[in-house]
């Protein structure tokens, strides 16, 4: 008579050993949710044909807590890489997915992460075609770290780069700033403030495709993740050797985010986003692009927030509500909540 393997809800070191438990974890916990012909072959590498200009990117996701309002590390890992591809104008096709799991994570939690990966991939229309799972000693990682890589095809005639901003271009942001950073922060241990706020974590590839349809001449696209809008605008200004001027009163910021930032001494310009983009667009196309964006569910609050200038290359300046101008610098270091 065969004996059943002892069933534990927890992921053990043995799950990463390459042995029977490891196979079972992948076969039961991961593969069914992500099933597709390329993945199901289970060869050492996924093999597929493409023709054209390939965009290729990778990112590793570490977030505490791993589940937060509006998303989790699984959704984040898919959206982040899909968005990185999208910011070159590429149509994302295939992803790789690797987990580094801390022993003791529950199988349920892993199941929820995998299920979010599946949902986000389905929403973005991409397939996970290869992957890896490792389990490490307690304390070696914080619950679970996720890496995704991705490839996508750049449509012909699309030339989007952070170095292409031109004086006169308009700067568009796709929606409210800082939702992700504040939503995650509100869940951190020790910081308890009630908020209905959700992370904006979302795949932006369809939005980008719609924008390119309206204006194939979009000069720059970038997602203002860590470091927030201020850091992204500084990168673009430096790369393109231009100045950027934005207007405080045009910046879309939710009341909850503003209130939390005021309380903690943060500036929404520096708070992370996971489902927003900044577009730098030739002035003649700006209104049409904005109009198209606002019809997408992920860009309802899109706004033209400023323009590109010639003087002082690399500098980002904001016209404040009071009519004064001030420098908007990059984020340096970690923002720390203040004392008083």
């Amino acid at each position, binding site marked *: 008579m065969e004996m059943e393997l002892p069933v534990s809800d927890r992921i053990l070191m043995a799950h990463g050993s390459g042995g029977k438990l490891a196979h079972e974890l992948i076969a039961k916990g991961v593969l069914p949710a992500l099933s597709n012909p390329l993945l199901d072959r289970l060869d050492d590498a996924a093999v597929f044909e493409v023709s054209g200009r390939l965009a290729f990117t990778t990112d590793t996701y570490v977030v505490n807590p791993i589940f937060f309002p509006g998303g989790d590390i699984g959704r984040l890992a898919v959206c982040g890489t899909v968005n990185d591809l999208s910011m070159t104008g590429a149509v994302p096709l295939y992803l790789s997915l690797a987990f580094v799991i801390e022993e003791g994570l529950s199988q349920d939690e892993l199941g929820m992460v995998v299920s979010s990966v599946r949902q986000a991939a389905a929403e973005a229309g991409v397939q996970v075609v290869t992957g890896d799972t490792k389990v490490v000693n307690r304390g070696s990682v914080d619950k679970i770290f996720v890496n995704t890589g991705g490839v996508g095809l750049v449509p012909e005639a699309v030339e989007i780069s952070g170095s292409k901003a031109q004086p006169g271009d308009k700067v568009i942001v796709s929606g409210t700033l800082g939702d992700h950073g504040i939503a995650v922060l509100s869940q951190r241990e*020790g910081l308890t403030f009630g908020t209905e706020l959700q992370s904006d974590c979302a795949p932006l590839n369809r939005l980008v495709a719609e924008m390119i349809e309206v204006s194939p001449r979009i000069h720059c696209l970038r997602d203002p993740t860590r470091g927030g809008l201020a850091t992204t605008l500084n990168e673009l200004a430096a790369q393109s050797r231009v100045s950027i001027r934005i207007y405080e009163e045009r910046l879309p910021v939710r009341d909850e985010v503003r209130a939390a930032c*005021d309380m903690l001494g943060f500036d929404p310009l520096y708070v992370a986003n996971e489902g927003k983009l900044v577009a730098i667009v030739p002035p003649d196309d700006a209104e049409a692009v904005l109009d198209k964006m606002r019809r997408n569910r992920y860009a309802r609050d899109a706004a033209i927030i400023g323009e590109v200038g010639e003087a002082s290359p690399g*500098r980002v300046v904001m016209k*404040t509500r009071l009519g*004064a*101008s001030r420098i908007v610098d990059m984020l*340096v270091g970690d923002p720390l909540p203040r004392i*008083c």
Partner: protein
Amino acid sequence: MRFVDEYRRSDLAQAVIGRIRRGSTRKARLMEFCGGHTVAILRHGIRQLLPPTVEMLSGPGCPVCVTDNSDLDKAIALARLPRVILTTFGDMLKVRGSRSSLQEVRAEGADVRTVYSTLDALQVARDNPGRPVVFLGVGFETTAPTVAASVLQASREGINNYHVLSFHKLCPPAIRAILDSGEVDLQGLVCPGHVSAVIGSQPWEFVASEYGIPCVVSGFEPLDILQCIDMLVSQIEKGESRVEIAYRRGVHAEGNQRALELMYEVFEVCPAQWRGLGTVPGSGLRLRKEFAAFDAELAFDFDPGPTLHPKGCICGDILRAVKRPSDCQLFGRVCTPASPVGPCMVSSEGSCAACYQYGDGAAGE
């Protein structure tokens, strides 16, 4: 957003700016005591909007900045003790003492934890009954009552592993020290809003009556600050010196009696060491004898070592408003928020960090 948007309305702001420009004929060097005001002034670009007669000087109102190296060394030495958990507000982590910072000793293995309130620190003590938990008490009259409340709570619950390292400071004596030094030519004082919400406006009366300097308590929104400047300019023009409140929704003349009672139930006034000002009599708070068991200075045996100060750093002069960040040779070159030399570049409320982040007001395009 209600209660915020009203205080950022640009049409109202323009009207107040116009009034200040028209009304100001005499020299008006105004000190904003509080770092929160400095940040708001630079963030909204208020300096650029003022007439040449009105000059804003940043004062010592940043609790992180005025914590002396000798005190920082004590916190760092305590954090290094075996089994000790040091809890602190986040912005103290990066400030360097004579030889190290809490961030560095944490990387070396010390158990230093960021908390967002004193009650979180107390929870750490409850959760770790076998280990001493120290709360680093840095702050002004705004913070001290909450620390007092945590000590009283610990006392009620019989939590005996909770200790406070008190470097709390009182604001009015620091202003007296600055005025007595005669180093700074001042015509007006923007009094701190949150501190005054606790202590009231009455403790500033001596500035007006003894030194003849107009005082106005201000809130932190652009319109609050502009209204405060307008009121100060108006007093200066008339040759008056009174204490007024431009922050009535937050501050009453008598302050918050309950908070003050709590504070003085646990703490008593003592001399304190201020960066830049040296020892200022009657400007500190230490735990009363009844609460000696909670006093980290008494509960532990530790050696902070000799106090050193970084060469070339003029944070002390900046905190006294004798110099500006741009006068410092290190500013923006050696000393940046990424690798700060002095505390004024570390704290988000520090003048150097604010000038670095937002420009000193002169910068346009």
